[in-house]
């Protein structure tokens, strides 16, 4: 959907500060869909996400005078969305265990391979043990996955991935959703979440490994079922 290019940030901020309604309508239309997606990462319903975005725009209107141009205006607005949505998501008791909503490192450890830091992301038992001539090499390598050609399979696979996302520790879920679902780049995600490049990468790495593992188990079960059905 093409919309007229937005003016540069300093001009735009000045227009908003001056109460220019056309400029406000322009940014609302340009950024709200992305803001809804961002909010949806933290809250459990579309309605909540829409409310977060409303609240965020009101906060933007109230505090536009404090925009100092250290980040882009869009990033500044997105941070406001993330903060409001995070607070609200914390209040909604959603599927994420309360312990994983903390922001500090080490609070996301929910078992082997699922924490934010340390530990291998692939079960060590799948590799030859130390001392073995092929130590560290695959003993149980991945099996090929079927192509996603069947529509039914594709829908099931999407549902499986969505369930895997919902089960991730909160910080991993936020990072992988922004990066892989919504296509933000690494710099944007670091800026919006105010985390380091290294931290972002660890969270993304662990999250992707967990989602891949879930798909692997799904395909393994599907293959086992298919084998049983063959007379």
């Amino acid at each position, binding site marked *: 959907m093409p919309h007229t290019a937005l003016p540069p940030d300093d001009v735009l901020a000045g227009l908003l500060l001056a109460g220019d309604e056309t400029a406000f309508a322009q940014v609302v239309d340009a950024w*709200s869909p992305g803001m809804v997606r961002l909010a949806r990462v933290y809250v459990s319903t579309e309605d909540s996400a829409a409310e977060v975005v409303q609240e965020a725009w009101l906060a933007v209107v109230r505090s536009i005078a404090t925009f100092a141009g250290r980040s882009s205006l869009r990033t500044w607005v997105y941070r406001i969305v993330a903060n409001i949505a995070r607070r609200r998501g914390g209040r909604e008791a959603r599927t994420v265990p309360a312990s994983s909503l903390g922001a500090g490192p080490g609070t996301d450890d929910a078992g082997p391979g699922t924490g934010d830091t340390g530990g291998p992301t692939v079960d060590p038992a799948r590799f030859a043990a130390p001392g073995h001539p092929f130590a560290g090499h695959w003993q149980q390598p991945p099996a090929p996955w079927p192509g996603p050609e069947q529509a039914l399979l594709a829908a099931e696979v999407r549902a499986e991935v969505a369930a895997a996302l919902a089960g991730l520790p909160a910080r991993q879920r936020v990072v992988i959703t922004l990066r892989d679902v919504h296509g933000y780049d690494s710099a944007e995600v670091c800026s919006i979440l105010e985390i380091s490049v290294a931290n972002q990468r660890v969270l993304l790495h662990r999250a992707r490994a967990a989602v891949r593992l879930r798909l692997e188990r799904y395909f393994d079960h599907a293959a086992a079922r298919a084998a049983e059905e063959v007379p």
Partner: protein
Amino acid sequence: MTDPAEPSNEPVDHLACNELVELVTVFLEGDLDPATERRVIDHISLCDGCDLYVDQVRQTTDVLAGLSGGAPLSPADRERLLATFRDSSG
């Protein structure tokens, strides 16, 4: 398969598969230093298990990309916002 521009007999410090799987993300981000990147590519070219693993991580991100949604604001929400903006900047 050797690149004629590169000496083919330089000692190669081989990665183990369990090391490679922890480099997949930084590899896909394109953030590895050139020497390590080459070790990863060399390993993948020789190891079906790791080739498949990296490909499955890519397939996983493809499925994730297909989950994208995100709707524009409802007309009522949009109108309410514009009205608030109008009032607040009186």
